[in-house]
């Protein structure tokens, strides 16, 4: 239950007590269980504070962009450093006040200081006609803003940092760059947020928006690294697409299996973007692997990826995460994550045996996805936590994919598609009725 739900519940309790729906004891228990921490900022407050800071910072950058070349160099340098000094003093004051400072003030101070830092670097480079690419500028900007995330616990600057490191990583995907100037440093940049990480001693869990920003940033950063390592080998240049697509699948599996404690596991799926996005990619990848025409490409990708240290690094991390997931009995996520390893299972049997043998992967993927789909449905009917509609959708997508890949006539395919559509609707109606029955029995 999120804060807004808790606030709504707390507002209803007095009325429910008056109506006799709840005893005073029950109401007290609910109040204790759903106490809202009012020291946390409201979303509107945060957004307004961040918007104000953004407008001031952007205005500052625009004023700088005008280029006041009527003034001497020292005067223009003063323009660069005065806003920086002012925002630093403001942040210092906020830090001095500690917990007494409102959260939105903390956010505003941090964001203003980050923007003033960027404006200062930009103005210095303008005054001295400095060359250089904008990713270099971005790099220094986010590095100098990072400590503000730690000390002021700023969500806005954390999101800025996450977006900036992702954009920087995408821009560093270029053949011939040294590793320390490439997306390979992305994991280190992400680790820079460690003092802000969930579970850090005495800190509240991350907000949903920061979790999504972090996941999307990490996906972009690590996928950029996969593309970079794939193009690193001159002799494998022709196979780089196949190579990085499998590396992306391994990355998605790592994401889906990121270790969680029991509280994390119990959270709703929408609070776990790494599981949502990782699983979606893997399911798409799994369906793609059922196409026989793609099998050779996928297996070529595996063959070339296995020569890369980055791939072995991913496999080692994945092995550790698999073990931890086994301990936590995260069967559903394990089943989906294992889709990334199917090419590895098929690889020894088909390697060097020609194209005819490559249908093995197609069959493996079809069987595996069918098993996942059926399990998700059966679990629900067995009275356990399942996802029948997701399971049914997976099966239907699979059937459609197999039909599209088959040599049946158009007529046969058309009839099959109609049949699948009717079955899907019928299943949906059945599930709706079952849900109603379940709700009726509870009441």
């Amino acid at each position, binding site marked *: 239950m999120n804060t807004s739900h808790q606030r709504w519940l707390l507002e209803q309790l007095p009325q429910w007590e008056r109506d006799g729906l709840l005893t005073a004891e029950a109401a007290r228990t609910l109040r204790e269980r759903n106490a809202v921490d009012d020291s946390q900022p409201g979303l509107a407050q945060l957004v307004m504070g961040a918007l104000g800071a953004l407008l001031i910072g952007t205005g500052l950058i625009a004023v700088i962009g*005008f280029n006041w070349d009527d003034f001497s160099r020292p005067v223009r340098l003063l323009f660069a450093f005065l806003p920086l000094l002012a925002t630093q003093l403001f942040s210092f004051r906020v830090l001095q006040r*500690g917990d007494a400072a409102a959260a939105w003030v903390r956010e505003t101070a941090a964001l203003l200081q980050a923007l003033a830092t960027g404006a200062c670097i930009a103005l210095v480079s303008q005054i001295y006609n400095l060359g*250089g690419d904008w990713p270099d500028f971005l790099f220094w900007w986010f590095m100098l803003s990072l400590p503000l995330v730690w000390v002021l616990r700023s969500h806005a600057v954390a999101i800025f940092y996450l977006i900036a490191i992702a954009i920087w990583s995408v821009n560093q995907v270029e053949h011939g760059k040294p590793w320390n100037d490439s997306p390979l440093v992305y994991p280190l940049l992400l680790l820079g947020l460690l003092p802000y990480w969930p579970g850090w001693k005495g800190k509240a869990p991350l907000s949903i928006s920061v979790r999504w920003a972090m996941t999307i940033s990490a996906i972009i950063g690590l996928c950029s690294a996969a593309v970079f390592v794939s193009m690193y080998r001159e002799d494998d240049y022709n196979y780089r697409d196949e190579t990085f697509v499998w590396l992306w699948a391994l990355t998605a599996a790592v994401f889906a299996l990121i270790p969680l404690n029991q509280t994390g596991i119990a959270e709703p799926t929408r609070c776990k973007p790494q599981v949502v996005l990782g699983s979606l990619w893997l399911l798409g990848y799994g369906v793609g692997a059922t196409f026989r025409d793609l099998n050779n490409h996928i297996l070529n990708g595996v063959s070339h990826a296995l020569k890369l240290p980055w791939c072995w690094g991913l496999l080692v991390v994945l092995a550790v995460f698999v073990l931890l997931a086994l301990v936590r009995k995260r069967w559903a996520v394990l089943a989906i994550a294992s889709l990334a390893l199917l090419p590895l299972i098929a690889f020894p049997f088909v390697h060097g045996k020609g194209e005819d043998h490559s249908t093995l992967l197609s069959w493996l993927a079809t069987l595996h996805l069918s098993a996942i789909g059926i399990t998700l449905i059966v679990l629900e009917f067995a009275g356990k936590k399942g996802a029948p509609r997701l399971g049914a959708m997976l099966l239907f997508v699979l059937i459609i994919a197999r039909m599209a890949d088959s040599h049946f006539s158009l007529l046969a395919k058309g009839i099959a598609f109609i049949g699948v559509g009717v079955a899907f609707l019928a299943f949906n109606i059945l599930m709706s009725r079952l849900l109603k029955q379940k709700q009726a029995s509870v009441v």
Partner: protein
Amino acid sequence: MKTLPLIIFGIAVLAQWAAPLAQIWTHEQTLTQGTLIKLKCSAPDPYDPLRGRHLAVRPEQSEASVPVGMKLQRGMHFYATLTTGADGLATISALSLTPPASGEFLHLKAGYVYNDKAGIEWPFDRFYLNEKLAPEADHWFAENISSAKGIIAEVRVLGGRAVLEDLSFDDKPFRQILKERVK
């Protein structure tokens, strides 16, 4: 008040000052003590959303010959010896992996390396202009595109580092030409 956040904040503040101040220091050194060289170039007028209007400065010399035996690859840094011709304009006359013993030189990065030629990534590529003057630069270029004289980049060079000091045309500062046109 907790000490650790304050210490981290203090370090961050110092770094936020040190990064631009270090740039200022090295570039001021070059501007005040560096040797002036002149390079023929072109300079169309793009726009940087963060840093405003600037002219994209492109020296005419875009590649140089790689000496036999010099193992230069894309992205590697090298030293370029500058030689001033009879017309007063400088060109890159030699490349090396170590700083030359004498003369003016630049520390540059190789773009492409192909057929014993190395693409040069010049350390300056922009000359910032006031928003009022920048559109006038466009008009000026349209009118003078066929001129053989070309724009001259006046660059200060010191210890391999270069700072673009000014642009000129026909021995007149380019900014002044534009200001006179705007009046």
